[in-house]
């Protein structure tokens, strides 16, 4: 039996440990916000957080997850108001929108580690996420906008340096 948490909820899984997290999320849990795009960790559409780090859920098996805290797009924020989500909406980043959950999860992880990323840092962090509609200029702009927001919030809460 594998135990882990999913968006804060304890999970116990007794099935095939080889099952990729992606299909567990989508088909078993009904959390379809995490998308299938390539199945080989080439496109980033299935990006979720494992203990806060971005991972490709299509290449992560349930057997890998023992004791791990998994966060999906549905659990990124309770009300959809994570600064990255807000910036994404303010700039109308999405076109078809299919890859955007993965983009947002990668961007949120980036900003957690690197609150003010350079263009190069954005390229490095986001290179694994393909957008076939090519919303890249707005993704870049939204990350920078969210970086400002993260900074402001941190500063106003008085907990920052």
């Amino acid at each position, binding site marked *: 039996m594998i135990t882990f948490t999913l968006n804060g909820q304890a999970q116990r899984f007794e099935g*095939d440990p080889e*099952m*990729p997290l992606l*299909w*567990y999320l*989508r*088909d*078993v849990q*009904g*959390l*379809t*916000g*995490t*998308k*299938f*795009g*390539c*199945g*080989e960790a*080439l*496109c980033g*559409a299935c990006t979720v957080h494992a203990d806060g780090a971005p991972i490709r859920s299509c290449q992560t098996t349930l057997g890998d997850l023992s004791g791990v805290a998994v966060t*999906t*797009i*549905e659990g*990124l924020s309770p009300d*959809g108001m994570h600064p990255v*989500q807000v910036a*994404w*909406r303010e700039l*109308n980043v*999405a*076109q*078809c*929108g*299919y*890859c*955007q*959950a993965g983009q*947002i999860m990668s961007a949120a992880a980036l900003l957690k580690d690197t609150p003010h990323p350079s*263009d190069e840092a*954005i*390229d*490095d962090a*986001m*290179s*694994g*996420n*393909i*957008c*076939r*509609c*090519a*919303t*890249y*200029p*707005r*993704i*870049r702009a939204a990350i920078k906008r969210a970086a400002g927001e993260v900074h402001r919030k941190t500063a106003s809460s008085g907990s920052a340096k």
Partner: protein
Amino acid sequence: MSGITNLSRRAALMGLGAGTFILAGGLGLAVGPGALAEDAPKKYGGDAMPGGVKDDPRLFVALAADGTLTILCHRAEMGQGVRTSWAMVIADEMDADWAKVKVDQAPGDEARYGNQNTDGSRSMRHHFQALRRIGAAARQMLAQAAASQWGVPVAEVTVDHHSLVHAASGRRLGFGEVAAAAAALPVPARETLVFKDPAKFRYIGRGDVGLVDGFDITTGRATYGIDVRRDNMLYAVVARPPVHGGKLGHYNVDEALQVPGVLKVVVLNTAPLPSGFLPKGGLAVVAENTWAALKGREKLKVTWEDGPNASYDSAAYRAELEAAARAPGQVVRNVGDVDGALKSAAKHVTAEYYIPHLAQAPMEPPAAAAQVTGDKCEIWGSTQAPQTTRETVAKVLSIPPENVTVHQTLVGGGFGRKSKPDYIAEAALLSRAMDGRPVKLTFTRTDDLHHGFLHTVSVERLEGGLDAKGKPVAWLHRTVAPSIGATFTAGVKHEGASELGMGAVNTPWIVPNLRVENPEAESHTRIGWFRSVSNIPHAFAVQSFVAELAEAAGRDPKDFLLDLIGPARQINPADLSDSWNYNEDPVAYAYDTGRLRGVVERAAREAGWGKPLPKGQGRGIAAHRSFASYAAAVVQVDVDAQGKLTIPRVDIAFDCGPVINPDRVRAQLEGAVTQGVSLATLGEISFKAGQVQQDNFDTYQVTRIEAAPKDIRVHLMPAPKYDAPLGGVGEPGVPPIAPALLNAVFAATGKRIRSLPIRDQLRA
């Protein structure tokens, strides 16, 4: 207004309120200016599409007593923003409050809603005026209802942002308060509609409206075809014949059935060639989840009978196309004496261009769920073509199309792939095979690349003659490419009128001798539409060759291009041997060389054309008319000593006539620029032994963020009045990008690349 019809549909109708009736007719026929008096008037635009254009507000507008305005969108949302723009137009024309607007998605039903085929950059082009009529009619009905309630003449009622106002008495009613009364009124006749003064538009042309699906998309709640879940649903993947036209040989499914979760392996029949939209057949693995289905498919033991396309080989085929391009072919446009002019020209320039197959590769691979109940079928899927879906599903199930219900989800990228419902037909067949349980069919990425409807492959050969002063005197273009028509009709070996009309025949050049030929090409795979279609190879070749001629003439490429376009004039496309013209009226939608000049000049000016650049950098320019819009791009490249290409900046000038949603127009062009870069630098699907050689995004590469242009500047031309004809938006940004990019590479390096993709051709 016309009579009452088909009351049986009332229950499902999105009417203004209870007890409404449905109007039919009232659509009128658009009389084409060029139509002959003795013939039925030729229809153009939306009126010429199956199902036509509907403008009955009762079909598209529902107003609740609390003022909530629900607008029905019947076009597929695939990233162009149509659900937002569509509702914006109706809401603005009604003078409604955007904060109270909700958008619902219509099921597939063309008889009722009008044409739903979402391709060809047609949604706003065909529907903008109808949407205004819908909004205006609804507004007038609301005003009439308020006037009746107050017992005042309707002329004294004004509409003010979701309210009706009687200024003289100071009375005011919300839209919702008169919704039921308004619903009982007749729909005003078209000629009585009064449109809002565009100066008072709050949303149209302003572009500060948030996407209606923005919240759902950013929170993972948006539902695409691949996300559909139904009670008791099963999951399936299909092993298909790897060669187009091949079929199942021997097989053994025993091991597949041993995989936990696998329930059944189903044989799907292969449609004979040409197979059109029909599935390829093969073996379907149906399971309790997608993972089990995938594992089961790996365990199938199958041999395939490859059929007539088993030797399709891209290298050999390219040689065939080149040979065809070097010999005369069917003449599709001829002006003057090209052969004579080429012989006597001071300079004779020849170039051949190659553009390989491309796959649309939308991020959501084809996927759909289906449930068959008796002789009825319900579909939940992402499709650009709900009506084609109904017809195709009906055909494979041998049931009437009316028995097929298509619930349209968001489309996770289409680019033309999801105009073809083969995958949805597979889902329907599998639900029937599983005794009516809902089945979701998913393509993997490999399935998508191996079993697509690919962009054509082409060789474009151009010859040009210049006189002693460098003036062009002859132009010969041979375009050789398998046709989309061959996917549907046996024996098609020439490009169709629509393919030739995408920039091959219809060049407006000031050249006294011009000939376009279309030698034969046989198709060996499924060819389909890919965003901007044949405009890609034609514009790549034509606009590269213009720059090559400019170089031979010792001229600036932009100046040479403008001279070739010549003075501003309105050309009937038929005079360019283009009988198609995107099925638009040849007078209202003439080829306007002034607009083409306009975008060239704007792009050049904005990009700083002619200003010096550092060593290793260069600018290229290209312009193209497609989908009744005009686009010109200046691409700036940097090629370092190792041959690494980066794109610091792209300026694209765009003229699509009236701009309805500037934010989405800009977004479409931003995306088109990088999709153009992607196909020019990386895009290639190739065949060996009849099989696609690319399996996933490692071998079929597409542009990622680090290689996308760093700075994309979109320049929208000043929009004319809102009653002017609209051009398309989704596609016309793509065609000028590849030639502008390769012209820039030439400017930067002196190296002329004529074979796409660039890939490592610049590597030192």
